[in-house]
């Protein structure tokens, strides 16, 4: 026990809120459930900020490395002699950073939903699920060991499942939830196997032991090899598969767009800011192991990240559902983070990428949550997700409009907004490690600026569509979070991340490298300009462009048919070519054999009935021949 023991409350408060609100769901009238949830999370948020303050400022001796502190730990289960599952709380730079992100966004969403979800059936249920999610997410970021992380990883998955499927009477909503759960579950399979291998090669789950540069994990790097790669590398790759599943990295990304079926605040919280970056967090958590133990695995991370960011950006160009556009942009931004982790080295300047990744994670959480909540406000106003049914909203929704614009500029990487700083660090890191990756990211920066402003213009500019009632600005309870987040997205860029969150805990100095920054600003501006040209006012240019690149357009619009491929695999292969035969085999072969035996017996009993002819002389004959047979066998043969 130590001065951080109180942090136990941070996850526990939402948990008890969940229990209480969940049990007393139908008793809680009106917004009571929501208020309880919000207050509970408010406390948790306050504690998180206090922790951050305490950890980064008051408790920290200047010039020394940030050490990781175990605030609390209990034994949960003994597995083998060596392996024991503990539950606890680990305080170190990234976990505190995540603590801030999660609690802030979650708190914002809680407040926002008081307005957004007003009058929904099962309002209290919504809040109980939100609290459950907050609990699981906080537990995940505070995990002291890999297995605890896995436990909460699953819990996060299920609460996301519950929230996506919140409108469970809509079949599409539930199937989206199902898809999300099963895809991530499939990825978690990799994670679990990774854990199995890693824990048996290193004999521990504990992060502090794992990331110790001369601990069992990294020293086992040269250990037993399988198919050319060391077991450790395999473990890391498999673990990354788990992370990729949660963070919607290609090709496990298919669940994220559908997940937009959930209520918009949920998308903002889970599918933009927190849960989807769990993958990044996982890799960051084990970063020393990746960097020192399995560089190959790290390369995989980099390339997957890079590809996904490009891939998603291209799709985002053509989507018309605003939430889907945001979803794909989320994928693309997470791609950035993964890449930047992938290109990073360990320690000091080398660890720039690591720092940049977390930095971007932080800023992205702010502006992406802002974007989603803004989109939510828009949807709230026009009751539609489709761009084509929007336009000219800027005069109806001034606040939303402003904040949305800020967010767009941020994501486009225009200084002095925070996005610029974090993205710039990433580009620098990429530039120093691998020019190709750098090129990709550079391109993606442009694409991002383009499609974001495409979105922006088609929502807020252009002429009005005929709305069945004039759109009105969202209530204060919704706009205040927007403003707070806008504030965050503007100024969070000024945080000295290179002193706070670094790969080895030691701060280092970094400055903006204008050789890279300038072009990145430039391409951002270019993207915006093109978007302005095409979408500020209705004109035929977009159509023309679409026609010239019709194939590319269609493919991008159909998300490169990945969904169809998956559908084929699951429906056709699994269901028809495995499950159906299995069922058939069971009915006819296995069962048939058993029945066959029974039938055989019956058959015999029918065919020997001739023996019992009812004629005494035949009986006598059988008798005598029986005697003769016995005599033959036992007198002459034996």
């Amino acid at each position, binding site marked *: 026990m130590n001065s951080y023991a109180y942090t136990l409350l941070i996850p526990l408060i939402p948990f008890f809120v969940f229990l209480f609100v969940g049990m007393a769901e139908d008793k809680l009238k009106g917004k009571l459930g929501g208020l309880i949830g919000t207050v509970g999370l408010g406390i948790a948020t306050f504690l998180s900020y206090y922790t951050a303050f305490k950890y980064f400022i008051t408790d920290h001796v200047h010039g020394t490395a940030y050490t990781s502190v175990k605030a609390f730990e209990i034994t949960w289960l003994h597995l083998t002699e060596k392996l024991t599952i503990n539950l606890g709380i680990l305080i170190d730079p990234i976990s505190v950073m995540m603590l801030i992100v999660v609690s802030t966004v979650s708190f914002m969403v809680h407040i926002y939903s008081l307005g957004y979800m007003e009058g929904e059936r099962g309002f209290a249920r919504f809040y109980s699920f939100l609290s459950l999610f907050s609990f699981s997410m906080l537990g995940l970021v505070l995990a002291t060991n890999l297995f605890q992380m896995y436990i909460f990883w*699953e819990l996060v998955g299920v609460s996301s499942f519950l929230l996506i499927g919140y409108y469970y009477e809509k079949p599409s909503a539930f199937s989206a939830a199902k898809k999300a759960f099963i895809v991530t579950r499939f990825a978690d399979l990799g994670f679990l196997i990774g854990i199995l291998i890693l824990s048996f090669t290193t004999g521990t789950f504990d992060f502090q032991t794992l990331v110790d540069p001369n601990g069992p994990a990294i020293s086992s790097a040269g250990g037993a090899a399988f198919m050319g790669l060391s077991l450790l590398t395999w473990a890391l790759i498999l673990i990354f598969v788990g992370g990729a599943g949660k963070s919607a990295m290609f090709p496990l990304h298919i669940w994220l767009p559908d997940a937009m079926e959930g209520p918009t605040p949920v998308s903002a919280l889970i599918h933009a800011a927190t849960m989807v970056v769990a993958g990044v967090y996982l890799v960051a958590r084990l970063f020393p192991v990746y960097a020192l133990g399995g560089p190959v695995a790290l390369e995989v991370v980099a390339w997957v990240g890079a590809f996904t960011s490009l891939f998603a950006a291209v799709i985002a160009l053509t989507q018309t559902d605003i939430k889907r556009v945001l979803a794909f942009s989320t994928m693309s931004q997470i791609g950035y983070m993964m890449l930047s982790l992938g290109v990073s080295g360990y320690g000091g300047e080398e660890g720039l990428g690591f720092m940049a990744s977390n930095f971007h994670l932080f800023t992205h959480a702010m502006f992406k949550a802002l974007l989603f909540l803004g989109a939510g406000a828009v949807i709230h106003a026009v009751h539609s997700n489709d761009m084509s049914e929007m336009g000219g909203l800027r005069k109806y929704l001034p606040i939303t409009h402003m904040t949305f614009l800020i967010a767009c500029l941020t994501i486009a990487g225009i200084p002095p907004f925070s996005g610029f700083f974090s993205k710039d660090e990433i580009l620098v890191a990429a530039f120093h490690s691998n020019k190709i990756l750098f090129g990709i990211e550079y391109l993606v920066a442009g694409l991002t600026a383009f499609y974001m402003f495409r979105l922006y213009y088609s929502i807020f500019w252009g002429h009005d569509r005929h709305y069945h009632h004039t759109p009105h600005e969202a209530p204060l309870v919704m706009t205040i979070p927007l403003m707070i987040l806008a504030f965050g997205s503007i100024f969070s860029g000024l945080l000295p991340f290179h002193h706070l969150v670094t790969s080895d805990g030691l701060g280092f100095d970094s400055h903006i490298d204008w050789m890279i920054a300038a072009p990145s600003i430039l391409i951002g501006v270019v993207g915006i300009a093109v978007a302005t040209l095409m979408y500020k006012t209705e004109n035929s240019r977009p159509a023309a462009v679409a026609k010239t690149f019709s194939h590319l357009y269609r493919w991008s619009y159909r998300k490169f048919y990945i969904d169809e491929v998956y559908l084929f695999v699951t429906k056709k292969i699994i269901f028809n070519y495995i499950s159906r035969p299995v069922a058939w085999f069971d009915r006819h072969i296995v069962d048939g054999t058993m029945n066959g035996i029974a039938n055989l017996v019956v058959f015999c009993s029918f065919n020997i009935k001739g023996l019992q002819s009812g004629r005494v002389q035949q009986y006598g004959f059988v008798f005598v021949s029986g005697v003769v047979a016995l005599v033959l066998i036992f007198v002459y043969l034996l």
Partner: protein
Amino acid sequence: MNILTLFVVIPVLTVAGILFTKDLKQSRMVSAIGMTVQLILSAILVYLYVTERQAGNMAPMLFTFDALWFPALNIHYAVGVDGISVAMIALTGVVVFAGIFASWRMEFLSREFFISLILLATGVFGFFISLDLFTMFLFYEIAVIPMYLLIGIWGSGPKEYSAMKLTLMLMGGSALLMVGILGIYFFSVPEGGQLTFNVLEIAKHQIPIEMQRFLFPFTFVGFGILGALFPFHTWSPDGHASAPTAVSMLHAGVLMKLGGYGAFRVAIYLMPEAAQEQAWIFIILTSISVVYGAFGAIFQKDLKYINAYSSVSHCGLVLFAVLMMNQTAFTGAVIQMISHGLMTALFFALIGMIYGRTHTRMINEMGGLMKVIPFLGVVYVIAGLASLGLPGFSGFVAEMTIFFGAYEHVDLFHRVATIVAVSSIVITAVYILRVVGTLLMGPITDKHFLHLEDANWYERLSTITLVIGITFIGVAPLWLSDMINFSLAPLIEKLATVQLPGM
């Protein structure tokens, strides 16, 4: 009287009491009282056991009681429990209790129903407490035979066929078992010693290896049939599908555990050498049944069939773990038995309750039930999440322990088998969510469902009891796993002495 003997006496008294009742009300009241007492008793037993252990009692079996029954054959009525049997007894207590309340409205021949149900329970309790192979076998058969009447009389669908099939296959299993047990008996002691059926006595020395080679398959498969070992599982889907609710609960929840428990307590414990040699065959079979059952479940449309196949998968995991033969895997096996017992009992209870309302078990004929029967719906979701191994529920603990135990083996064969088994968690998720989706979610398909009433008090009681069990183990597994762990020590020592020829 010895506390363990009470576990047999109380049900018998209950049966006697039911004989004097007249109608449903009285008989269900008597049986409810009896089984409540039984439940309390098992709770007391757990408490006594834990305190006894903490007091430092290191005996392999506690509360032992031994009475010579057939001196000529040295057959004893010998009872005693270790952590494992205590856990199983507690499980049985809970499931039977829930089962009684789940069949609160058994109008037709209610007296006979409760009598047979409790006779079945008697057999199960007796099986778990007995240390003497003869009495063990006796109780085993006592537990099996009432199934015929229970399914045949109160069942649904092709009940005669299913009942006959189930009974005959299980009896065929006991044919194998008989050979195994007699074989063990005649080699229980070195030449000239007093032959014995007592497990502990037999375990003291090694059965000749060539006899083990001959007897192990008999014993293991004999128990395996009851544990739904592929390809001898085929009685289970039909049987479960035709059985009335409480019977499915008891059967899948408890009776199938006799298989795992016996395979562990008799086959492995008494014949470790042969087990080591032949494990690979059965590991292949069990890994098949783990995946096979899951895939089989995906395709089914009848709720009970789905659950039956998932039971095949989960019980396959039990035997799989038992065959892994290390401390962790054994612990996992026992936890899995308990968790599956609770989960599947809960499932069957819910299915029975839903069936009682919608009068169909075909998932494609139902939909949107969550809206009309929220309580049952929520509990069903909980059961589903538990059975797909979500943290916080017992299934997760069990599966993780098993996987880690299995993965402890360093050789490739075991690890591949493990990974095959691990992959089942995804398939499980698929079919569970498929059911939940079509059954509870979406719009209401049939307007008759609009005025279904939600669970009554006895249904709530029966389900909540099980849910509590599941979550309790899921949240705080440590006490349970330690209790089991400790009791495994003798077996682990015995295994440690085994010289592995070849492996």
